């Protein structure tokens, strides 16, 4: 097996808090895991779990209290290592007096491209993130989704081997999220390693080969999304309509709730076909059948416990 794309060993970060009486708050506690080359790796956790702290440590924006990290075998202190990585910060802020083309051109200057190569890359990546039409518009006129896209372009335009994305789909509309997902899948097809933090479980399910879950600065586990988040189906939801004069079959009556002009029924997965048979016998028109899965919020609540982590509960509820 070759060198891992990312190796994190006992990474710990303490912050001093308080003005007069300094106290220490541990934001990250002995984080240890590895990410393989070519993997799409999801870094999951509620707000305040330490995801952004980890990414800032890896990018050299803050310094660890203890522990080490290596990217493609090189220490994170090695500035030359940054030629091989790309980074999209959370809620990216860029120089808003620049146009998208100027920002990408500025970003590309830090790598050793010829002028012709630089121009070609800028044009190509603007097209890739769907910003060709807005290439010469100042970033101060950009929407959040457009900024996210230009942020992704500046992170990948030098063809890095490892790409770090901090909450890349957060705050985007469904179309924007789909576009970002497509870019990540595209990078995966090219053999790149993508490490992205998120609190959106469906993104992790769709995209990730493996995920790590972080809560309160501590690693809870690393594995495939199915192993870690145990996305078991909790039940099935059936939406149906009844013709005039027909009523809900007796055996199901206690479990049905009205939902607008239709009815909603929740049944265990094993009883699905039986419930459908009964509904069809009552001439019900079935509108949809959906799997009920736990949300990431459910997962985090289960993991940290409501009693032990009220602050997470508040932060997750605000999401």
């Amino acid at each position, binding site marked *: 097996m070759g060198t891992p794309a990312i190796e994190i060993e006992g990474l710990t970060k303490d912050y001093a808090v308080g003005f007069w009486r300094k106290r220490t708050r541990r934001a990250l506690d002995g984080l240890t895991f590895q990410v393989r080359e070519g993997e799409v790796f999801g870094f999951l956790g509620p707000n305040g779990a330490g995801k952004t702290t980890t990414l800032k440590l890896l990018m050299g*924006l*803050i310094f660890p209290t203890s522990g080490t990290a290596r990217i493609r075998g090189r220490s994170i202190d090695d500035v030359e290592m*940054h030629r091989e990585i790309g*980074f999209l*910060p959370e809620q990216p*802020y860029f*120089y808003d007096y620049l146009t998208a083309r100027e920002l990408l051109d500025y970003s590309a200057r830090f790598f050793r491209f010829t002028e012709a190569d630089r121009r070609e890359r800028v044009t190509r990546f603007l097209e890739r993130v769907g910003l060709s039409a807005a290439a010469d518009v100042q970033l101060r006129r950009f929407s959040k989704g457009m900024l996210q896209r230009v942020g992704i372009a500046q992170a990948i335009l030098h063809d890095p081997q490892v790409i770090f994305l901090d909450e890349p789909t957060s705050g985007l509309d469904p179309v924007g999220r789909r576009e970002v997902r497509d870019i990540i899948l595209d990078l995966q097809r090219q053999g790149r390693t993508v490490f992205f933090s998120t609190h959106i479980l469906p993104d992790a399910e769709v995209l990730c080969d493996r995920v790590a879950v972080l809560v309160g600065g501590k690693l809870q586990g690393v594995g495939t999304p199915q192993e870690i988040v145990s996305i078991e189906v909790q039940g099935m939801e059936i939406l149906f309509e009844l013709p005039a004069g027909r009523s809900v079959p007796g055996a199901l009556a206690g479990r049905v709730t009205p939902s607008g002009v239709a009815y909603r029924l929740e049944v265990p997965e094993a009883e699905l076909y039986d419930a459908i048979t009964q509904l069809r016998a009552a001439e019900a028109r079935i509108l949809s059948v959906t799997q009920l899965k736990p949300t990431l919020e459910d997962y985090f609540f289960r993991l940290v416990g409501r009693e032990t982590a009220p602050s997470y509960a508040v932060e997750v509820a605000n999401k």
Partner: protein
Amino acid sequence: MSSVPLFVAVNTFRESVRDRVLYNLIFFALLMMAAAVLVGQISIGIERLVIINLGLSAISLLGLVMSVFIGVGLVYKEIEKRTLYSILAKPVRRWEFLAGKYLGLLLTLAINTALMTLGLFLALLYVDRAIGRADAHILLAVYFILLEFALVTALALFFSCFSTPILSTLYTLGLYVAGMFASDLRDAGALSSSGAVKAVTSVLYYALPNFSNFNVIGATAHGDPIPISLVWQNTAYAAIYILALLLAASAVFSNRNLK
């Protein structure tokens, strides 16, 4: 030699232009035009003196305001707005970024000062109908003003690495004012009979940036010669002081956790 500071400098200059920092030139142009027209009517025989004095003072004041107020935000603003996150994730060393920000503001100040100097010469041409070789010493005064800006900007940048803009402004202006009176401080100490007072004032004299040496506006306006030794002294003094400040700023910034 790394080209990174150059890229950062050009972008910093572009920011100043797009943020309409150079609009202060309009104020200067209006001031020079008004002075050129009025001076002929109210002062007989001292038009040149008034125009040079007023012009150089305005160049110095406007540039000083830019050095301090833009300088204190050079790094602080980048941290607050988190714009430097994506830059430092690239192969950019922190000292390179810092050097680039410094050079970028210096470039802005140099271009701004060059344009104002051009305005001053145009005003002189208007009142005198001619510009002679003797007027070249004005350029020397402008050079000293630029050295002063470079030193003030280095001070502002240093404070910008660890303090808020308001406090950095106070520190920078405080040191500027104290530095203007550095020589007086030493002279006052020399008059004292206390050895301790003499020692303290002497240390302060050497530690504070001595801005009074850069001010030759009065002498220039009166056409007094400026000794060539002062040019070398001021250049070397500013270079050493600026280098020390930039090294200190780099040491602070390179070890700082960004928020």
